[in-house]
């Protein structure tokens, strides 16, 4: 196992499934990185992947994998940057083989591609398993099951690094673990060193959402200004053996790294800061120090940790039916009254004429939509859009709703225009906990 005490440079090349490509390429070409991580899975993405794989056994991995790798693989080879990703989603094996084929096509002979499996636990979890934070068991849910994936951590990733893989592809690898594993491999950190497990998890947590720490999802013009958002760069972490790190970005990229951007990402999706659970550790972020140490350079330190949990979290995915969304706009004097009248008509038609019981929501964008349930309403707008949403196990219910909204253009209030309607298949996800011994990660290394 490689061991060194020099600082380790790690970057993020994607913070979500459809993140930008060029800034990732810039980071590899100019960032002098030891490793880059592409984090592309959300709560539901693996379930969508399972659905894709059921329709086509060669699919189920991230749709942008080939497009990204076509540019990133040659760049990573050129700069000696190792790439780690969960783009395998519901089909890491197919993703690894697609990568192998691409590597050969690009003339990258000798490229080592690690495929990590074992997170798919559908054969292991019993149907009577109770849900983690709500009543009921898997067997109680009437919707068809599409898949079950456990969050696996550094224990599953380290063997791939020890095998000197250039590209590491897994499915439901826990986001911070993809950053912690290369740190452990480089510095020789022990899995029992809970302080460093916590510190490395902090680095991963800060880096896993990409531009959310370099000025993305931060700007509030006039209050919190960010320059160059169209050119925003991805983040780089310079990590030391003591677990502290400086978060920064390429000097010529847009965006910014400040105490403010780091703070907002520090507690993103965190509940009790003293106990942030991952497959590797129970991390403690409650005493983390965040210090500006230069332009777009912020140092984080003082994370801690306690022994990892005995259980692993599993996302259970179900087929959630269909969601229909449709709308018509109204503008000028009386726009709000006409919009509200249109809403009343659609609701009456859905409930009384078609007698549909499906979940239904009617909003008036420009007056009350995102904050409608919170009771906030703006009475001044003369440009509003009726937005109707319906969810049902039956596609036909969604089609009826679209039909009713469209018919407002003939049968509804005056001056309506701009009908659009879409129907999207849905997934439903819930969580269970299983003993970590029941998950057995598996590694295969392919060579181009």
């Amino acid at each position, binding site marked *: 196992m490689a061991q060194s005490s020099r600082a380790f440079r790690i970057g993020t090349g994607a913070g979500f499934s459809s993140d930008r490509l060029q800034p990732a390429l810039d980071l590899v070409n100019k960032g002098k990185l030891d490793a880059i991580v592409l984090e592309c899975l959300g709560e539901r993405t693996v379930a969508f992947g399972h659905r894709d794989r059921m329709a086509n056994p060669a699919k189920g991995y991230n749709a942008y994998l080939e497009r990204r790798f076509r540019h990133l693989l040659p760049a990573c080879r050129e700069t000696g940057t190792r790439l780690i990703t969960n783009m395998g989603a519901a089909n890491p094996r197919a993703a690894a083989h697609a990568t192998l084929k691409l590597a050969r096509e690009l003339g990258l002979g000798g490229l080592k591609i690690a495929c990590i499996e074992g997170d798919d636990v559908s054969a292991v979890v019993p149907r009577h398993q109770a849900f983690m934070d709500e009543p009921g068991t898997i067997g109680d849910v009437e919707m068809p099951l599409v898949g079950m994936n456990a969050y696996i951590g550094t224990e599953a990733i380290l063997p791939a690094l020890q095998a000197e893989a250039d590209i590491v592809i897994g499915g439901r690898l826990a986001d911070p673990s993809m950053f912690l594993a290369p740190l452990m491999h480089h510095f020789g950190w022990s899995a029992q060193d809970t302080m460093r497990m916590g510190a490395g998890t902090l680095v991963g947590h800060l880096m896993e959402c990409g531009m959310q720490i370099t000025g993305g999802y931060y700007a*509030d013009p006039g209050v919190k200004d960010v320059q160059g958002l169209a050119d925003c760069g991805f983040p780089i972490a310079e990590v030391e053996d003591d677990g502290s790190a400086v978060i920064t970005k390429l000097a010529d990229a847009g965006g910014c790294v400040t105490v403010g951007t780091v703070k907002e990402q*520090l507690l993103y999706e965190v509940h009790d800061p003293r106990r942030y659970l991952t497959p590797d550790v129970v991390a403690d972020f409650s005493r983390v120090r965040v210090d500006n140490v230069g332009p777009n350079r912020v140092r984080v330190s003082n994370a801690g940790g306690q022994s990892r949990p005995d259980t692993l979290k599993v996302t259970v995915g179900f087929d959630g039916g269909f969601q229909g969304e449709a709308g018509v706009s109204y503008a000028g004097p009386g726009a709000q009254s006409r919009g509200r009248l249109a809403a009343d008509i659609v609701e009456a038609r859905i409930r009384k004429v078609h007698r549909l019981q499906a979940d239904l929501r009617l909003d008036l964008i420009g007056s009350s939509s995102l904050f409608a349930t919170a009771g906030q309403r703006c009475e001044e707008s003369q440009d509003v859009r009726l937005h109707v949403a319906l969810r049902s196990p039956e596609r036909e219910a969604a089609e009826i709703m679209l039909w009713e909204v469209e018919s407002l253009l003939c049968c509804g209030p005056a001056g309506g225009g701009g009908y659009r309607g879409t129907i999207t298949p849905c997934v439903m996800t819930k969580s269970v906990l299983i003993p970590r011994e029941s998950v057995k990660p598996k590694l295969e290394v392919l060579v181009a």
Partner: protein
Amino acid sequence: MTTSRRNDRRIIRDIAHARAGDKGNTSNISVWAYEPADYQVLKRSLTPERLKRAFPQLFRGAVERHELDHLQGLNFVLHDALEGGVNRSLNLDSHGKSFSYLILGLEIEEAAGQ
């Protein structure tokens, strides 16, 4: 950053910034004072009781507040706050990502006598 508001009442956005995240049907919103001097005002203005009182139809479950005093930050964990969460809610913003601005839009509760 102080901006005057209608009726000269300041809002939380004038003294703090915030970001929302989601997990299932639970939202977490971290709120950070720009100036250490405003942190006590922030703590006084934003309590779990205030948030539940302000938006009872939306924040239906328990509200916890965690404090990172050394960073002038508060972390609110709001249970049963996302109308079922991303899988069930029909809100356009089913993740509740915009709810950071529900909090930032609240008026600051100045101390008695101010």
